[in-house]
């Protein structure tokens, strides 16, 4: 494990081992535990990591590090009964300009990639990167594709992309270093709502093949 200070008022705990659901459930459990600490303003789960933000710079950093280590060793997995949402995806075409790059990297056909991508029920591990964006776990490693050497400056919201062993859907327009294989329509973030993000950790996403453009 790795614990590092982020400036004077936040700390990052990075869990050891694989980026899998069992580790992530322990991270969720730790987030719940530490969010009730009086000095913690926010406990933010990431991909098998946890960031604690503090109201004031913490006085006892050593004690905090010990508490994080102990929590990781002792924490039970937190099962979240999330919602299940289906997102229809148009694979390839203008909305999936890098599908050909995933073909070139994996050696699989477009149909094979699309079916492998749409097969799993993905779990929202954490939110981050930009408002409402969901980090998903559960992608088939056979379609893993390294991040792009040159990022794309502007991709539209709803872009379905693969980056390394992960996949996700951009919640709004912005730059990205991932390979975009398709497009879906979904509102991920509404700043007028008290609960502005449409998804929470533990929710499940299934991609439905709406169309494949070759």
């Amino acid at each position, binding site marked *: 494990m790795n614990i590092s200070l982020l400036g004077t008022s936040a700390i990052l705990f990075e869990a050891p081992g694989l980026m899998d659901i069992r580790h992530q459930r322990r991270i969720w459990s730790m*987030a719940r535990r530490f969010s009730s600490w009086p000095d913690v*303003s*926010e*406990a*933010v*789960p990431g991909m098998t990591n946890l*960031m604690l*933000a503090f109201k004031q710079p913490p006085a006892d950093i050593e004690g905090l590090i010990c508490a994080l280590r102990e929590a990781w060793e002792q924490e039970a997995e937190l099962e979240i009964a999330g919602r299940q949402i289906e997102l229809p995806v148009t694979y390839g075409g203008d909305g999936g300009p890098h599908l050909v790059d995933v073909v070139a990297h994996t050696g699989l056909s477009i149909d094979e990639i699309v079916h492998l991508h749409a097969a799993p029920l993905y779990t929202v591990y954490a*939110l*981050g*990167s*930009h*408002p*409402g*964006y969901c980090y998903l776990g559960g992608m088939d490693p056979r379609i893993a594709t390294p991040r792009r050497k040159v990022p794309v*400056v*502007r991709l539209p919201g709803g872009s379905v992309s693969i980056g390394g062993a992960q996949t996700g859907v951009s*919640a709004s327009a*912005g*730059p990205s270093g991932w390979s975009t294989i398709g497009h879906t329509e979904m509102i991920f*973030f509404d700043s007028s709502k008290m609960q*502005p*993000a449409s998804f929470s950790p533990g929710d499940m996403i299934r991609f439905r093949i709406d169309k494949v453009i070759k």
Partner: protein
Amino acid sequence: MIEILATGALSTVQDLGRTGSLRFGVGTSGAMDDLALAIGNILLGN
């Protein structure tokens, strides 16, 4: 009033930032020197 016609990856408009929404993917952001921002706004009559 400022009308924004187009943005690039590195152009931002900063206020004093916002806390408490990191778990929704909303960064704290805000001016690096919030005192200077506040004084500047007072000088400009905002």
